[in-house]
């Protein structure tokens, strides 16, 4: 997924779950059926999973524009300076 797609997925997930929670609670309360509330909510969770978790194509409508390889060669990365470390080892004196 691209960045826009990720944002869309997150928003869709939150809105869908909250909507199903409201619908299921309202239906269950009005019908007087706890079981109905749980069934509708469970169905809603499954549906939301199917819509937001897999990497659907509509989440990739704003793909990242990576730089073309031939263009990248014209602008090489700056070389890192090799650090000249002068290390002097001192052998411990034998007693």
């Amino acid at each position, binding site marked *: 997924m691209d960045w826009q797609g990720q944002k869309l997925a997150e928003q869709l997930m939150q809105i869908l779950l909250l909507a199903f929670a409201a619908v299921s609670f309202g239906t269950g309360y009005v019908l*007087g059926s706890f079981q109905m509330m749980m069934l509708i909510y469970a169905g809603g969770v499954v549906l939301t999973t199917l819509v937001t978790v897999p990497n659907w194509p509509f989440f990739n409508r704003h793909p990242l524009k990576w730089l073309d390889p031939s263009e990248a060669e014209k602008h090489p990365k700056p070389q890192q300076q090799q650090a000249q470390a002068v290390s002097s080892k001192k052998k411990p004196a034998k007693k």
Partner: protein
Amino acid sequence: MHSFGYRANALLTFAVTILALMCAMASFSDNLNHPSPSSSVQVLNVNWFQKQPNGNDEVSLTLNISADLQSLFTWNTKQVFVFLAAEYETSKNSLNQISLWDGIIASKEHAKFWTHTSNKYRFIDQGSNLRGKEFNLTLHWHVMPKTGKMFADKLVMSGYRLPKEYR
């Protein structure tokens, strides 16, 4: 939200949190219910009334217990536990409560009932105080929810008296 696992985890966590909130709201909705239960108990017969060898009085009663507890049920009610207790005062104890009968009501349809029975549990005093004793029969109930808070209440029926002499 960059990977399958990340999104699945976020979704499940949010879904379970919302579920907890819905259960809290369902439990809270029980407060909106104002029940109006009713009950009456008749002592049909004192079967026997003796002093046990250990010195304690015991009495056996035949009771007719009828009640309408339908208004206690809400959409969030799993079952109602109901019991009938004999309550009286002695010089040793300011309150004695003895459960004589109990039952579980699983649905609203079964909440309007009557039962003609002898006491399910033995009515034994701590001592020998029951002759001529005036006592109350109190119906207690616990409304057990599917989720959340349990409500308990009672209905006191007074004016019962045991015989003056053993039978």
